C-alpha cells in the first residue's frame, strides 16, 4: 500500500506508506477525501495548488472480476467543483498488482516542459522528458509508448485538447488491445493533467506485489459467487455482451426520455437507425466485433469494435452516451459518422459527451444545421487545430452557449447532462442538479427503478429518495474499482451477499450490508464540504433554467422537483 507523490516543479518522486487516515480507502473515496483535505477549495484548477490524484479501487488487482476501474480526482476546471472521473481499461489492475494505492501529482512544471511518468514492473517510478510527444494525438502516442516501454504496459494520456488545457479535455486510457479508447471523460481532468505538464502515465502490467488479502480462501469463494451473480443477471449476463451499452437506445426512446436536437424532444427521429440492435447487426455484417472485452478481468464484454464498410477499424467502444451526444443531440442518424466522431474525440482527447452537446448547442444557435455530418466532423477537428471556435467547443457546451448567447444550454454546474432527459426522468433531474460532480449520470441513475415499475418517471413523488439512495450506492461502488455495469449484480441477494463477503475477506473485518452505504455517505459528505468551501450553495443545486420552462415532447413535462425538495436530497 504505497502512495507515489510526484512534485512536478522539482521533478521528485517520493514513495510513502499509506498514512493511517487513508487506510481502507480507494478509488473515488480516496481521491475525494484527499482532495477535500489537501487542495485549497478556492484554488485555480489549472494552477499549482490543484492536485491530480490517480487511484485504483480497493479491489483493483485482486482476482474479483470487473475491478479494473481507475478513479482520477482533482478540482474540475469545467465545473469548479470537486471531480472524480473514472475509466476502465487495464491501468487500475496494473496499479493494483504493483500495490500502488494512489499517485499524487502536485505543483506545476515551468512553461513549455512536458513529461511522461513511468512505473516499471518493480514499481520504480520516474519522470522522463517528452518533448517529442508534444501535440501528439492519443492513438499515435499510445503506439509509440507501447513500442518504447513494452506491450505489457497501460497508458493514461492526454491529446492536443489536454495540452491546450481545454475544459472538456479527457484523460484517455488503453484497453486490453492497447488502444486509447477508454476515457476518464467528464470534468476536464485532461486539462488539469496538461496544466501539470504531464503528457502520459505508463504503468507496467507485470507487477506482482498486490496488497495482501486478509482471508484469501474466503475471498476466493466470494469472488466465485459474485462472478456467477454477474453472469446470471440478464442485463450484465446477456444484454450487454450482445448489444453493449447501445442497448439502452431502444428503451430510453421508448420512454420518451432521449434528449434530442439539443434537448428539444424526448424521442430521436430515426433512432432505430442508431439503436443497439442496428449497431450490433452492422458490426457483425461487416466483420467487426461485438461482445468485445475492453477491460482487464471483465466478464461482461460490453465493448465493441466498429469497422467501416470495408471491414477496417474505425473505433472502439462505441457507447450509448456517445451515440446520444453525437447522434441524438445533433440529429445525425448515421452510425458511420457517429463512429468517426467517437474516434476523433478519443484521438484528440476530449469528452465525447460534452463535445457532442457542444456541437448540438452550436447547431441550435444556428452555426450549422442539425444533421450536418460534415459540419460536425469539421467542428471537432477544429478542437485539435486550436482555432478560436475550436477552443470554445473544446471548453464544452456552456462555453459555446455563452459565445453564441444561446438560451438553451443543457447543463448543471457547467457540465452537460447525459442521455436521460431530466423532464422525462424526474429522478435523474435530482441527480443532475444535486450531485457534487455537476450533471452526472453515473453518479446516480434512477432508470432501474423506472424499469422495475417501482417509480413513475414523470412525477415528482419519490424521486429525491430514489436519487439519494442511488447516489450513495454509486459513491460506495466507486471506491472499489468495480465497474458500474457489473455492479447491478449487487441488487440481487446472491450478488450483494457475495460482494460484502469479498470486502470482508479482503480487509479481515466482518462487514455488514450497512457498511456499504456508510462509505458512500462519507464520500458524499467530503465532496459537498469541498464544494461549500469552494463557494457553492444550495442555489447551485439546480438545472439550467430552460428545463423548468420548456416542456419536453412527447410527455410535455418540465422539471417538477421544487427547490425545497432538491435541498432535502442530502439530509444525512
Amino acid at each position, binding site marked *: 500500500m504505497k502512495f507515489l507523490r510526484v512534485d512536478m516543479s522539482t521533478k521528485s518522486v517520493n514513495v510513502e506508506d499509506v498514512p493511517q487516515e487513508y487506510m481502507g480507502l480507494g478509488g473515488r473515496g480516496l481521491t475525494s477525501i484527499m482532495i477535500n483535505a489537501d487542495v485549497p477549495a478556492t484554488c485555480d484548477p489549472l494552477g499549482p495548488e490543484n492536485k491530480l490524484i490517480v487511484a485504483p479501487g480497493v479491489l483493483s488487482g485482486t482476482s474479483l472480476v470487473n475491478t479494473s476501474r481507475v478513479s482520477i480526482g482533482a478540482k474540475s476546471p469545467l465545473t469548479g467543483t470537486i471531480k472524480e472521473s473514472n475509466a476502465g481499461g487495464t491501468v487500475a489492475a496494473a496499479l493494483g498488482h504493483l500495490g500502488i494505492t494512489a499517485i499524487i501529482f502536485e505543483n506545476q512544471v515551468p512553461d513549455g516542459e512536458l513529461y511522461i511518468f513511468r512505473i516499471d514492473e518493480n514499481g520504480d517510478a520516474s519522470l522522463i522528458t517528452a518533448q517529442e510527444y508534444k501535440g501528439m494525438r492519443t492513438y499515435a502516442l499510445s503506439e509509440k509508448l507501447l513500442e518504447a516501454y513494452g506491450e505489457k504496459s497501460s497508458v493514461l494520456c492526454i491529446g492536443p485538447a489536454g495540452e491546450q488545457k481545454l475544459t472538456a479535455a479527457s484523460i484517455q486510457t488503453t484497453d486490453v488491445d492497447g488502444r486509447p479508447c477508454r476515457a476518464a471523460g467528464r470534468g476536464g481532468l485532461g486539462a488539469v493533467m496538461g496544466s501539470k505538464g504531464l503528457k502520459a502515465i505508463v504503468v507496467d502490467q507485470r507487477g506482482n506485489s498486490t496488497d495482501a488479502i486478509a482471508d484469501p480462501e474466503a475471498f476466493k469463494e466470494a469472488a466465485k459467487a459474485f462472478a456467477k451473480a454477474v453472469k446470471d443477471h440478464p442485463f450484465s449476463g446477456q444484454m450487454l455482451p450482445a448489444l453493449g*451499452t447501445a442497448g439502452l437506445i431502444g428503451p430510453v426512446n421508448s420512454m420518451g426520455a432521449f434528449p434530442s436536437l439539443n434537448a428539444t424532444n424526448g424521442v430521436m427521429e430515426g433512432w432505430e437507425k442508431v439503436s443497439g440492435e442496428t449497431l450490433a447487426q452492422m458490426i457483425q455484417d461487416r466483420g467487426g466485433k461485438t461482445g468485445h472485452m475492453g477491460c482487464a478481468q471483465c466478464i461482461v464484454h460490453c465493448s465493441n469494435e466498429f469497422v467501416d464498410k470495408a471491414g477496417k477499424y474505425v473505433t472502439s467502444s462505441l457507447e450509448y452516451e456517445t451515440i446520444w451526444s453525437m447522434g441524438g443531440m445533433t440529429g445525425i442518424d448515421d452510425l458511420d459518422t457517429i463512429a468517426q466522431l467517437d474516434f476523433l474525440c478519443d484521438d484528440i482527447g476530449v469528452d465525447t459527451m460534452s463535445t457532442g452537446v457542444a456541437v448540438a448547442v452550436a447547431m441550435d444557435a444556428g452555426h450549422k444545421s442539425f444533421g450536418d455530418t460534415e459540419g460536425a466532423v469539421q467542428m471537432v477537428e477544429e478542437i485539435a487545430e486550436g482555432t478560436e471556435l475550436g477552443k470554445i467547443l473544446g471548453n464544452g457546451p456552456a462555453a459555446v452557449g455563452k459565445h453564441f448567447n444561446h438560451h438553451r444550454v443543457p447543463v448543471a454546474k457547467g457540465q452537460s447532462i447525459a442521455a436521460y432527459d431530466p423532464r422525462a426522468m424526474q429522478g435523474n433531474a435530482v441527480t443532475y442538479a444535486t450531485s457534487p460532480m455537476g450533471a452526472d449520470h453515473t453518479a446516480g441513475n434512477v432508470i*432501474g427503478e423506472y424499469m422495475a415499475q417501482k417509480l413513475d418517471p414523470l412525477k415528482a413523488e419519490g424521486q429525491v429518495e430514489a436519487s439519494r439512495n442511488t447516489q450513495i450506492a454509486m459513491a460506495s461502488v466507486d471506491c472499489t474499482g468495480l465497474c458500474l455495469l457489473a455492479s447491478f449484480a449487487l441488487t440481487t441477494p446472491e450478488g450483494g451477499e457475495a460482494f460484502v463477503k469479498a470486502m470482508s475477506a479482503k480487509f479481515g473485518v466482518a462487514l455488514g450490508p450497512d457498511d456499504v452505504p456508510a462509505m458512500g455517505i462519507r464520500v458524499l459528505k467530503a465532496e459537498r464540504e469541498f464544494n461549500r468551501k469552494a463557494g457553492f450553495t444550495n442555489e447551485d443545486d439546480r438545472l439550467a433554467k430552460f428545463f423548468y420552462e420548456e416542456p419536453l415532447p*412527447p410527455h410535455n413535462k418540465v422539471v417538477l422537483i421544487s427547490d425545497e425538495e432538491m435541498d432535502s436530497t442530502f439530509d444525512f
Partner: protein
Amino acid sequence: MKVKVKLFGILGQRFPGYYHEQGMDVEIPDGARVKDLLAHLEISKSFGGVVAVEGKLLTDAAKLENGAEVNIFQSVFGG
C-alpha cells in the same frame, strides 16, 4: 385484436426470422393486458420484459388497445 410488437435487446433472437426494425403482428384476445401479451410471447419476469406504448412504460395490469405499437425490451440499468 392485433398489436404491432417490436422486440429489443436479445428478445428478438427467440423468434426465427424476426427483424428488429420490422416488428411483428401478434394476435391476442380483446381486452388482453400486458402480462397476457408477455405470457403469449413466453417472455418471463426473470428475463425482465418491460413494455412501452407511445412513450410510456406500462404495468403488467395495463390493458392493450387494438392496433397499438408495443415496444418490448429487457429491463435496463443506466450507463
